[in-house]
């Protein structure tokens, strides 16, 4: 029994370490600002604001696990939000809006995947180009104007993405559901094995009969659809779509994935780590401000926590503990 516990601890030390860091950070926040952090309200707020970055980070977890990178996701988020906004404004149908957004995310992911696997562009270059292209595309398509969707709040299906379920904000319900589903895919499904295998050594994976191209394209499609879904859910929250949508999430999403424990080198990815890190990263700024650190301290502390967390992961890996 002891051996099983030891083995479990050894295998999951990265996730356990992350939970410990998160709890420690929150304890510090509770000590420094008890009025805010002993109230359930702040946690409910995090549950309604964190999932937007969380969904992007879930997609990035898969992309990094397969040994690639995607820089276009903030623009894809705007594509998803725009497709939803235009479709809803034209039809007043949430279902059609979501289908349009998912189609937009699918097409962007497919193009990214084709550019990387068929055209042979490095993913950092292909997705960098797509990031600019898509931002220009949404700005041109809407003549640079925002889309006001005030009527969305009165729609009967509005609570599906912006209401609550047993007092839990629906944003977190969706984030949790998709995390469990994608965790199952990554750890328990053949596709997940292929992703990790390709990420670890694509040449060997190819020799083993795994279709590297198809797997990579599928991962970029997952990323695209998750970004589009995040954009759609963000539109539900804001009841407005801006051409600048997603730009504030770029660095936060990357920080979430790296703090969660997913490596840039490929072949490794942790959906659980990403889920926990999303809430850790998402709560940092509010905690630092509530602690009363005035003025210009926020980014300094924010950066420090990220560097310390990732240093711990890196050393755990180097020592072969995870």
């Amino acid at each position, binding site marked *: 029994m002891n051996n099983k516990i030891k083995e479990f601890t050894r295998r999951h030390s990265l996730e356990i370490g992350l939970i410990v860091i998160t709890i420690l950070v929150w304890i510090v926040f509770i000590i420094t*600002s008890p*009025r*805010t952090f002993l*109230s359930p*309200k*702040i946690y*409910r*707020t*995090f549950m*309604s*604001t964190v999932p937007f970055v969380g969904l992007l980070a879930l997609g990035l977890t898969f992309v990094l696990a397969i040994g690639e990178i995607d820089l276009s996701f903030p623009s894809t988020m705007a594509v998803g939000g725009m497709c939803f906004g235009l479709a809803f404004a034209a039809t007043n149908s949430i279902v059609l809006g979501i289908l349009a957004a998912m189609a937009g995310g699918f097409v962007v992911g497919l193009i990214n995947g084709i550019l990387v696997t068929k055209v042979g562009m490095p993913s950092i270059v292909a997705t960098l180009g797509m990031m600019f292209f898509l*931002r220009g595309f949404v*700005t041109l398509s*809407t003549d*640079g*104007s*925002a889309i*006001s*969707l*005030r009527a969305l*709040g009165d729609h009967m299906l509005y609570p599906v993405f912006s209401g609550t379920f047993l007092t839990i904000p629906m944003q977190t319900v969706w984030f949790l559901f998709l995390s469990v589903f994608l965790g199952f895919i990554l750890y328990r499904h053949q596709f997940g094995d292929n992703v990790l295998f390709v990420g670890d050594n694509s040449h060997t994976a190819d020799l083993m009969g795994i279709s590297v191209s198809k797997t990579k394209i599928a991962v970029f499609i997952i990323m695209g659809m998750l970004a589009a879904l995040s954009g759609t859910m*963000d539109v539900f*929250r*804001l*009841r*407005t779509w*801006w*051409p*600048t*949508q*997603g*730009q*504030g*999430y770029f660095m936060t999403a990357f920080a979430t994935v790296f703090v969660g424990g997913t490596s840039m080198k490929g072949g490794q990815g942790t959906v659980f780590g990403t889920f926990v890190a999303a809430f850790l990263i998402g709560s940092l*700024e*509010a905690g630092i*401000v*509530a602690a*009363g650190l*005035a*003025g*210009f301290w*926020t*980014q300094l502390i924010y950066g420090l926590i990220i560097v310390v967390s990732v240093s711990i992961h890196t050393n755990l890996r180097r020592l072969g503990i995870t």
Partner: protein
Amino acid sequence: MLRKISFVMVLALLLSLAVTGPIMAQDEPLEIYFFPGGPEGGPFATIVYNGAEHANEILGDRVEVRYRWSDWSPERMVTQFQEAVAANPDGIAIMGHPGDDALEPHIDEAREQGIIVTSQNTTLPRMEERYVAEGFGYAGQDLYDSGYMLGEAAVERAGLGEGNRALVWGLLSQPTRGQRTQGAKDAVEAAGIEVDYMEISSEVDADASAGIPVISGYLAENPDTDLVITDHGALTSTLDVYLETAGMEPGEVFGAGFDLSPATLDAIESGYVQLVHDQQPFLQGFLPIFQIYISANYQFSGLHIDTGSGLVHEDNVELLAPLIDEGIR
């Protein structure tokens, strides 16, 4: 003149209340969440922050101000506003960039909790009307009017009319904030001038130096441009670099824009920038803190104060130079 007198009276009222405040002061300091708008250290946001800090210093231990830096991202502002509401402070001073629709449910929630909300820099007309009696004020420019004022004055001072060409580089895509760009564009077009409009991209919005190749390319293609208006503080402060890089001599193109900073002062002195609209961001930080303080303590309703009524040019810039260096103007 009337506007100046009323502004002085409001300021005198605020300061006298601050002085007499301790008599009625509450035991616990008022906790206020304040949104300077931009990134930490951003030129405009820092002046707003300086104003809020100055009010904080005057009020001493009667208030405790906490800052949320939003990088001018409307989404971040909404998220940070939600978090501020969850922290249940006594007051929140928000920038209105996300617009009424995006902020409405959260402002309603804040009011239900008894949090005083006020606004600065960009208006939230519906929210202000709904909660004005409960301390919801506004300290900032009237956006469209400010834009129109600058556009009209630029045309007049540059002596332009039909047959001339102008570039307006702004932020029409942002729902409320874009009104200032629209005002400037309308004023220039009303003078019969051909106007080319360019949207400020997010990269340029975040880092003005990223705009050098954009405007260089435009001016190379359109060497007959007579007037350039930049609707962005950081871009206005970089206008001299833009024009110099594009091979222009000082005064060859009439440069106009918004918001003062030490760099903008240099640009005016170097002759590349001829006209700047000053919305007095210091007051957009200073006044909301007092708004929340007097509403919490004396139940005053919201004050709508237009801070943007000044035009700065080579004839009056010397007067303001020391204050610009101090980060007050």
